[in-house]
């Protein structure tokens, strides 16, 4: 039998050549495709002759290589077909024909029938690939039932096997494989642990998940995956209400892999949950700078392994855990937090950075994310930035931003607008689909807010006349809106709520401005109307009392003040945008002085 051995040798050499070529530049997609087709061709050649015991080793090696190529390209069905057919062919020699209803049963039969044959190890290699495919297609249950890790572990630990494979690597007549099966097993084990942990976590089995993950943390694995393990442990702990321990885990994850941005993001969320604003801002700042690094989102792991974790870890629960908002969104969060928590100038800078990033011609490093759910709409960002600027007493800049919003919207503003009850609209009609009415409403509110901010700016500059002008413009805009029903419920965040708030604030602002120009009657009217539209407006309440006081209606004034003080300040403002908050920049009334006045008035 001279010829078959000769053929065998040429095929083995062909296979080895291909493997060498593959290893030279395995990254390019075209190269991958080319290699894949070459392996397929070789496989067809080797399968052209009837199954022969001498050939089995080569044939299964080629199948392994071809399957790796297909799996890496996410062609799972092709790979699956290849795998089962090759094994069936190989088993024809042992005269067992494993016909099984499903894959696990098939594999069990196969393993039983090859257990003492020469090509047991080859079949086990192929089983690893099956494992990879199950993992990539999220069939965690099958993997679990099969107890794959223990099964393959025995093979990996087998001493004789190790020797044999070493010998195999040295001699040139043994077929080479594109990846080392032992490395693959290691990778599969940790990935399976991670996927299982994520799955359990999403099913609220935090403690089980945690124990599984703790076992996995001792496995040999690349940095990124170890970091994932720590990250998942942290998530389990935070679910189990141990925020400090969770933070520890996140810290470990970051220490293991400095590019693990999601760990940082998760810690930021925990800080927010704990109310540690300064730490939260710090985390946000770090997160943003990390996201701005060019390699932040591309896992560096891909270079070393053929199977990227993204291929093997594709379960929904894990990817939702690993989700990190875009850099712009983080920047916005950072700016908002800074502005809200006393770091106004810093917040202003972040806002300006954000706007600059949005306008930059070529957005360096800032990828345009298709889904950026957290970022508010652009005019709102302008208005928030404007409000922050006003807080930082840069009224000229604020007015410029507001002007931009106004000039953009002004031409499109409707003459009349009917505000419908949002509950009447069906759920399916989202913001995009509904007609321009919604957009018109938003536009009107934006323009109104812009006028309001401008009014505040003029108030800040003590240009009372201009302030009155702008507040009036705002009010004129707002009165174009009619409510369809008179008894609509003012819900937090709804258009109606914003409208009412805007009305209240602008009327209050105008009233205060009138007060400053000594138009007390107009001032009183506006302030009363403001309180009617927005009863919790502190400024309007205090100034209303002041006007009443000045008009000599002191009892009413005292009642008004005391009612205002009884409000829990800022309680309702939590979810509101920055520009709808009461400005702290206008003329202020000192509460102490007012109380003093009340005391002076004495009990009547």
């Amino acid at each position, binding site marked *: 039998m001279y010829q078959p051995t000769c053929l065998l040798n040429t095929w083995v050499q062909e296979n080895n050549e291909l493997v060498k070529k593959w290893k030279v530049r395995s990254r390019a997609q075209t190269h991958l495709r080319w290699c894949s087709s070459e392996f397929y061709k070789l496989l067809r050649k080797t399968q052209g002759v009837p199954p022969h015991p001498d050939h089995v080793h080569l044939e299964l090696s080629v199948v392994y290589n071809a399957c790796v190529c297909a799996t890496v390209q996410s062609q799972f069905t092709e790979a699956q077909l290849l795998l089962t057919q090759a094994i069936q062919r190989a088993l024809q020699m042992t005269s067992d024909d494993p016909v099984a209803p499903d894959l696990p049963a098939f594999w069990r039969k196969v393993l039983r029938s090859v257990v003492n044959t020469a090509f047991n190890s080859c079949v086990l290699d192929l089983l690893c690939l099956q494992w990879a495919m199950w993992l990539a297609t999220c069939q965690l249950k099958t993997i679990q039932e099969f107890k794959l890790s223990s099964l393959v572990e025995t093979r990996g630990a087998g001493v004789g096997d190790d020797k044999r494979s070493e010998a195999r690597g040295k001699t040139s007549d043994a077929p080479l494989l594109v990846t080392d099966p032992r490395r693959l097993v290691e990778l599969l084990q940790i990935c399976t642990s991670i996927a299982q942990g994520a799955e359990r976590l999403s099913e609220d089995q935090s403690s089980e998940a945690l124990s599984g993950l703790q076992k996995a943390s001792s496995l040999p694995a690349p940095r990124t995956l170890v970091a994932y393990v720590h990250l998942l442990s942290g998530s389990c702990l935070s679910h189990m209400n141990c925020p400090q321990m969770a933070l520890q885990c996140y810290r470990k994850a970051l220490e293991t892999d400095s590019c693990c941005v999601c760990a940082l993001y998760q810690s930021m969320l925990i800080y927010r949950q704990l109310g540690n604003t300064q730490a939260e801002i710090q985390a946000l700042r770090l997160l943003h700078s990390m996201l701005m690094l060019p390699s932040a989102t591309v896992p560096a792991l891909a270079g070393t392994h053929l199977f990227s974790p993204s291929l093997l870890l594709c379960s929904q629960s894990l990817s939702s855990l690993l989700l990190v908002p875009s850099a712009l969104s983080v920047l916005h969060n950072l700016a908002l937090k800074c502005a809200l928590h006393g770091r106004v100038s810093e917040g202003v800078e972040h806002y300006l950075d954000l706007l600059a990033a949005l306008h930059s011609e*070529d*957005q360096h490093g800032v990828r345009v994310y298709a889904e950026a759910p957290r970022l508010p709409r652009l005019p709102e960002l302008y208005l928030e930035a404007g409000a922050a600027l006003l807080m930082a007493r840069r009224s000229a800049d604020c007015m410029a931003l507001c002007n931009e919003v106004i000039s953009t919207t002004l*031409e499109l503003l409707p*003459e009349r607008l009917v505000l419908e009850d949002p509950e009447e609209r069906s759920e399916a009609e989202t913001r995009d689909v509904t007609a321009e009415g919604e957009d018109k409403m938003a536009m009107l509110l934006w323009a109104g807010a812009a006028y309001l901010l401008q009014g505040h700016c003029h108030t800040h500059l003590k240009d009372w006349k201009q302030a009155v002008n702008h507040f009036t413009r705002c009010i004129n805009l707002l009165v174009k809106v009619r409510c369809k029903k008179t008894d609509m419920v003012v819900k937090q965040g709804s258009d109606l709520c914003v409208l009412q708030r805007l009305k209240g604030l602008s009327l209050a602002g105008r009233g205060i401005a009138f007060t400053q120009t000594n138009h007390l009657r107009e001032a009183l009217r506006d302030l009363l109307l403001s309180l009617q539209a927005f009863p919790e407006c502190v400024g309007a309440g205090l100034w209303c009392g002041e006007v009443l006081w000045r008009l000599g209606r002191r009892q009413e004034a005292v009642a008004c003040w005391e009612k205002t003080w009884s409000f829990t300040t800022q309680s309702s403002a939590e979810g509101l945008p920055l520009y709808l908050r009461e400005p702290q920049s206008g003329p202020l009334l000192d509460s102490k002085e007012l109380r003093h006045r009340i005391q002076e008035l004495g009990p009547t």
Partner: protein
Amino acid sequence: MRATLSFLSSVNKPTGRSPSVLFLGVVVMEGRCAVETWAEFGFPDASRTPRITCARGTDVFICTGSDEAVLQFPSPVSDLVESHDKQLLYVSCGSGVYCVSFPFLLSRAQSSPADACSGPAEVKVPSEFLVVEQESVSSLLLVGSVLLVLSQRDASWLLSLYKTAKEAQCSSYEMLSSFSLPLVSSGDTEGTGMRRRPVLTCVHSGEPKSQSSSSASSSTLADSHFQLDPVLFKLLFGIEAALAKSPVVLCGLPDGRLCFLPLRLPGARLRVLHSLEEPVAFVGLSVVEETCPGHAKCLVVVGEQGRVVLMKTVKGGPEGGGTTAGFIEACVAGPVVCGSVDKHRLYYSTGSDLLVLDLSVGPSGRESRERDDDTSSPTAAALTRPNSLNVCRVMALAAPAHNNAGEVQLLGLSVRGQLQAIVLPVVERRDEALSNQPSAQVGRSVGDLLSAIGDVCQRVSVLKNAIKDKNQILRHLNQVLNVSFLLIASTNSEEHRPGQEKPIRCRALTRWSRLLQKDSLNLTCVLDNSSPYVLEQGWTLSVTVFPVSYSPGAGEESSSTNFSFPFNYLHPGETLEVSLPLAAAGDTSFPMRVSCSLIFSLSSLLREEETIHLPGLQRSCISLPLNTLTVDWLHALQVNNPTTHPINRNATSQSNHYPTDTVKAFLSSHRTRCSGRGESGEKKAEREQHSARIRVSSELLRDTLVDTLEPQGPKLSSENLCISLLDWLLSEHPGGGKIGQQGDRIALSSSCVHARGPNGDSVKLSAKEVHVGEESTGKEEHLSAVEVQLDSSSIATVCGLHHAVLSRIQALLQSAPERTASTVRVQSLGLREALKRAERLSEQIQQSRISGAFGMGTSTGQMSRSLLAVYKELRENPLLII
């Protein structure tokens, strides 16, 4: 390929003066005529050289005025786009997007050895230039530094954004993001033939405070990105896009959807703006109104089947809700192959015509705005009235350019690959209410119309002339073909029936003439057109003269001489006479063959200026052989006239140098014969007299010569028979037949003729009646025969004449009636003797040839002497020809 390139280089001239950087591409899909084309205009930069880029199949041609290059890509090219600084070229083909820099290209093109004449340099694009690896890319667009790539996946359209590098680096571009839109089956257009490429354009929001609008608009038009009126921009694409000053990418898909994507807006998605329900053919912006010249006020979308959608701002919406975007739909006659807009007009080509549609008569016109209630109906009506420009087969249009005179110049590419510059006359914009215009305007428009009519008239007359010319050529060609078929048919039939004459044939006669003391033999060829067809202009009679044999000493130089005589018209029954010099005195290269043919040159069908463009045609012609004549020694003989000495004869007296004084002739001939005899006796010592004899049975001669010569009576006397034989021998002309002119007839009075051969040797032809009997058998059977004897001192003359007489008699025998042959009694003994003699002689010849071949024993002189003896012996005892 070559044709396309030459056309492109010829394009340089017209585009050189107009906006200069022309960028144009053609993609041929699957090598068939499904051509997709697009054209883009740039504006002049420092160098005013036009640059043309053109893709076809897997190749891209680039012409920069001075350099040409062909880029070869591994798979068919689907789209190409040029970078803003004109330094990079992005080309998408099957495997992805390649980026080629022009400096690299030119250096490669120049370094590769390519002749100027052998076509442009070919550069294979290496795979390092693959910057985006993506399959089935259908369209490209470059916005700033972002390259947009639209490709079709299994179930979705995928728009990917790539960040371009500053220089042409051989690395993959970084993908910024990608957007997908699920595929909608486009119904019937899916299967039918050509799939339209998606249209990608970029729209910017115009700056509201554009005082320098003219410069701004021109510079942005150069990028092929348009500035849209800000209000309309906001209405169509949303406030956020306007606030972010984001360019918006418009994408017209083959399924009819027009999608848009604000580029710089975080969270933006590819959204459908409108659905045209037919493949989008064109997306453009038009100003429509003059009030704001900087920005386009109208977004125009044209579908393949002719649906036109105008998107404009409509003031005062339906429920008083401020301005809204108005969508005005109209239908024009499709199919729309390509389109282009300028300020007020939409130009589109249906393949068979180029049409222009005035967009300004729409609702933005002042009248229609006043009556708000029906805005769309008059528009739709007006939009369905496009004006034809009468230019057909335009496949692609470039953006129209206005020159200083206000004319609009369009550049179109026709199906055949011609780049056409279409200049539209200055058309005053007419409003619908023509009656409202002042009379001066009406007059002017009437003038315009009249001039338009004049233009049309001119075009019609030009076209008529062209058609007339073509008809003329066809008729001419028909005649030529008729003649050709006739002659070919007669050539074929001639092989079977030799007697039949060709309807167009040549006759010839020979004449000696004397010019400048030199005698020469002239041949007059007569072309006889007895066919029913006219030989028209373009035919040439070609006469080739060559000796039948030539002496080995003369070598090859005495080969053929060619004469050609072009002639204009030869109607049926007419003849054409041409004469040509045949031989000078002393030339003995007879017999000569004169072969005549008719040649038709195809270039004479066309006018001269047309033939210049077809260099191959000038040499192509049809050659039809007529007949071949033989001029032998007899034709070349100069018969000595009894009255005039042949030497003193001059050319002018040639026609009447045969006086009919028979007595004198007889006497003189008798005398010369006597003197000749005496002379011969005298000269025998110094000069050998050669002679040859041919015997022909007189019965045969009687039968045949009576037929051929005019009958001189029922039965010729022997004397007359001899004379008539000599007469026939001397008077027959090449080509058969005799010249009918009486003056040319040689009136022979005696049976002995003295003549001079062409080499000047005198020769005597005599004929006498002899009786040949069969003496051995003793029977009284004897035949009367005429013996022609040739005597001359020159052996060449004797040989030539002998050959000539024999061949004449052979021809006579062929035409002889059958019965003469049947009456012949075979002279068996004479034949046998002759045969024996011939055998001996042949042996002798063989011997001499062998010895000659071995070159031993005999010298050349000896050999020639022995051969001469053989020849003489052959001539001695002539057989009787019966």
